[in-house]
């Protein structure tokens, strides 16, 4: 099969970007989308042109590196998969496929289809953990966790941190990501002591990073390659509001003079 790809080319963060069309010929429908880009890049290189920069690594849908907006949908037409798991058979012969980077103020474009998602790391650094010193843990079976809770926490933990939620959201909100990360830990008994501080800090960092606000349209969940449910956002809202109210009314420690 043959397709035309209309790719966003941008030399660096500051540069103006534009679209360029490339012909991808004689493709095997069982090629992955990224393999198609590999082929286009090989030809560009041989023609003495600069190949398209695109983010990728594991190519099995788990590392969360790949991040293409394909025909207006993060990761391409199929649902529940990452860009690397999108195959050319999902397109028709002769299609013009528009490929853009994930766009958000908090995800500045580095080059072509590669954007910088370091703001996700910053959010994690502000609270996406349980403060447990290495070597200080009790026996793993000392803290029983009900199967239902453990399964739900695992649903949240499946997040691969790709940023498709931000890319799909009309407001570039990171609520699904934050809610999945905070939700996993807030569900588990191990995460309870830091539950309030966790959500307050993570949301504050999220706001600082310049993400938009959630308008409850759930495009994030629909675009998520791991189909993470928006109910974690409801949980985050609940945990956050509770924590805020608690922080307003909590007794302040006495300061000795």
């Amino acid at each position, binding site marked *: 099969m043959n397709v035309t790809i209309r790719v966003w080319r941008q030399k660096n963060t500051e540069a103006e*970007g534009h*679209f360029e069309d490339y012909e991808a010929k004689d493709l095997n429908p069982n090629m992955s989308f990224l393999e198609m880009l590999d082929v286009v890049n090989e030809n560009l290189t041989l023609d003495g042109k600069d190949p398209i920069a695109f983010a990728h690594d594991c190519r099995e849908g788990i590392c969360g590196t790949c991040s293409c*907006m394909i*025909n*207006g*949908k993060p990761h391409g037409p199929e649902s529940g998969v990452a860009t690397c798991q999108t195959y050319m058979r999902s397109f028709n012969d002769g299609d013009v496929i*528009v490929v*853009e980077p994930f*766009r*958000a*103020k*908090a995800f500045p474009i580095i080059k072509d289809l590669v954007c910088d998602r370091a703001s996700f790391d910053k959010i994690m650094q502000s609270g996406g953990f349980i403060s447990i010193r290495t070597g200080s843990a009790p026996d793993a079976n000392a803290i029983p966790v009900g199967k239902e809770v453990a399964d739900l926490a695992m649903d949240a933990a499946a997040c691969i941190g790709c940023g498709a939620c931000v890319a*799909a959201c*009309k*407001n*570039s*909100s990171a*609520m699904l990501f934050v809610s999945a990360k905070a939700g996993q830990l807030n569900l588990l008994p191990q995460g309870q002591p830091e539950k309030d501080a966790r959500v*307050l800090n993570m*949301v*504050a960092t*999220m*706001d600082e990073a*310049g*993400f*938009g*606000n*959630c*308008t*409850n*349209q*759930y*495009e994030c*969940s*629909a*675009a998520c390659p791991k189909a993470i*449910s*928006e*109910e974690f*956002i*409801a*949980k*985050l*809202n*609940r*945990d*956050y*509001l509770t924590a*805020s109210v608690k*922080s*307003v009314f909590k007794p302040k420690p006495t300061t000795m003079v």
Partner: protein
Amino acid sequence: MNIFQVLFQTSIGKKAVMAVTGLIMVGFIIGHLVGNLQLFAPPEKINAYAHFLEGLGPGLWAIRAFLLLTLVLHVWMAIKLTLENKAARPQDYVSQQTLRATYASRTMRLSGFIVLAFLIYHLLHFTVRVEGFGTYPHTTLIDGTPVRDVHTMMVVGFQNIWISLFYIISVGLLSWHLNHGLVSMFQTVGFRSRTWSSFLTKASVLFSILYFLANAAIPGSVLAGVVKIQNPEVAGYVCPAKCAVCEAKNAKT
């Protein structure tokens, strides 16, 4: 963080303000609708009700101030959130698909602003009673208390097909706004979960439809002639007995 910082500076806080102010206004519009439905009773009923409300004096002003504040907060937050959301994606996609968002959710800003415009008109018409916007007659209750004739004011108003149409379209848009707003409210305060998200969605659709029908029934029945002017002092009064006095009066106008 103090409570104001939480509510007006954080993403979730601002959303909570939207949800809570929205909830208050939903409460108000339900009460308002119930009050208005008294139009279908004899005029005495709704006129006495209006008189009662006006008799609250400072209490009424307190309620009005509260509702105005709610409205201002709701609109202010909506504008603030919208501007932030626009800023969060300085460069838009060339093509972006809509995957799941409902049509109502994507037109909240439009429906909201039209409803706001209507609301201003509506207040000028029925609350401020700006001269020229409508007819503002008086009448007396059975016990002889002189009151404003709200019943006639409404009927005369809705007998104008353009006013009625504007009203119907606006309550339609308000119902449309509520269709997303109601269920969204539950999400924002964290009460929407997998187990009852589908119930919430359906309940909110049902509420919106019922709300629309009940509201539309008011101008509808006036236009259809089911509800008529019942104040003999007002032009357009249709005398049930076809008495000479009335005929003379109508002939004059």
